[in-house]
């Protein structure tokens, strides 16, 4: 019973030991050397959970919506896991993670597993390790994984590369159709949810959004008509319909072959990230290359060489070292 031992954790997680899962997540989050073994050994068990992303601006009601969505998925017989990301302070490194506050009833019976994550320097709306944490949770045997981003602006879009269905949550005051024609957040949506739809303007935003979407070339989705759903998460209104829509999107992805394609490009991103980190380590941790870099950057300041030629020289010395 050693919860600090990677082999023990990888053995226990598929057996449904929540404490083992919880500790493994910590190791992954901390980028502890032990995490690598855990991720590797459990990877063959991943891929079964359907991943749903919830993103949108701060205060749109994402956490409240996650709460009712989780309950709805669970009532349909799914084992549900949640990852909720909140921001880390760039000044102190601390974080206040408050997503459990809105979860109340959904967590009371302990059947839903929820993990809060601080963004820890991640700038795309997720933490750097959120995808790896999702993989470890996947291997635990969840049917549905809900990933909630930090409150985002227009350009924190990591979520789209981490999930199968992205739900963008807006509120009636979100601004009209021109906002929807801008690039960024609006483009990554597979489904829009206009939350707090009991407020004025929800229907207007809905029709403006639909208008704007009809003018947009289908960049991400092809033949999928982007649905705009109205919800009042606090009262649970519109939640069944939203979950139905997630399932419709899932069917669409599977029928069109995009499910597999998306997962493959996500795997490609993972491999690229690992390769980039590995190349970085080999280049920047190598002492003799470091001294090459030092002298080249010195020449740059003195105007003896431009940065492009310096980079070429650097790469040549790296090649020569192999």
């Amino acid at each position: 019973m050693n919860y600090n031992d990677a082999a023990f954790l990888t053995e226990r997680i598929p057996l449904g030991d929540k404490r083992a899962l919880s500790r493994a997540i910590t190791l992954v989050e901390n980028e502890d050397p032990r995490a690598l073994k855990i991720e590797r050994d459990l990877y063959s068990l991943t891929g079964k959970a359907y991943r749903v992303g919830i993103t949108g601006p701060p205060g749109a009601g994402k956490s409240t919506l996650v709460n009712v969505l989780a309950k709805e998925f669970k009532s349909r017989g799914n084992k549900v896991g949640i990852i909720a990301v909140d921001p880390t302070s760039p000044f102190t490194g601390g974080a206040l993670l408050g997503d459990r506050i809105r979860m109340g009833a959904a967590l009371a019976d302990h059947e839903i597993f929820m993990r809060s994550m601080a963004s820890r320097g991640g700038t795309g709306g997720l933490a750097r390790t959120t995808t790896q944490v999702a993989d470890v949770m996947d291997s635990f045997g969840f049917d549905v994984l809900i990933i909630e981003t930090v409150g985002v602006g227009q350009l924190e879009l990591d979520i789209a590369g981490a999930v199968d269905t992205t739900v963008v949550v807006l509120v009636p005051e979100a601004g009209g159709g021109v906002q929807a024609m801008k690039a960024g957040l609006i483009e990554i949506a597979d489904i829009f949810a206009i939350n707090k739809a009991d407020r004025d303007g929800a229907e207007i935003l809905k029709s403006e959004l639909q208008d704007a979407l009809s003018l947009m070339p289908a960049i991400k989705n092809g033949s999928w008509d982007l649905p705009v759903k109205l919800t009042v998460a606090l009262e649970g209104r519109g939640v069944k319909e939203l979950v139905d829509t997630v399932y419709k999107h899932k069917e669409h992805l599977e029928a069109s072959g995009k499910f597999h394609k998306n997962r493959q490009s996500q795997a490609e991103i993972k491999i690229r990230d690992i390769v980039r980190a590995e190349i970085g380590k080999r280049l920047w941790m190598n002492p003799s290359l470091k001294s090459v870099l030092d002298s080249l950057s010195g020449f740059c300041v003195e105007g003896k060489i431009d940065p492009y030629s310096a980079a070429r020289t650097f790469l040549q010395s790296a090649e020569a070292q192999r």
Partner: protein
Amino acid sequence: MDKIKVLVAKPGLDGHDRGAKVVARALRDAGMEVIYTGLRQTPEMVVEAALQEDVDFVALSILSGAHMTIFPRVLEKLREAGLDHVVLTGGGIIPPEDMDKLHQMGINKLFGPGTSLEEIVNYFKEEGAKKKVS
């Protein structure tokens, strides 16, 4: 990069959460990751949250006078869940003689009215440093 993780919880029916929020904010500003559960948590919910979030500390804020019931219950549930390594601490309107009794049961330091935030932050830092080394 091992962060000190603290679960701040308000168990029972007591709805006065200003103190819990002020402490949560102070710990955040000291660089810790603080999970705040919100109001009206049962001991079972607190311990389940501690397990799912893999925290180093559970800090309870109790102003209702129920501390002699709730602290021992949470401690018992933590032990049942195998979370002996989690430090149970907290604060509220707790008379010194009750604090002594709770210490004897195995509850860590408790903070009464008038405690400075600095004292609280230092406690978490010192205890946290001990845990991260061991």
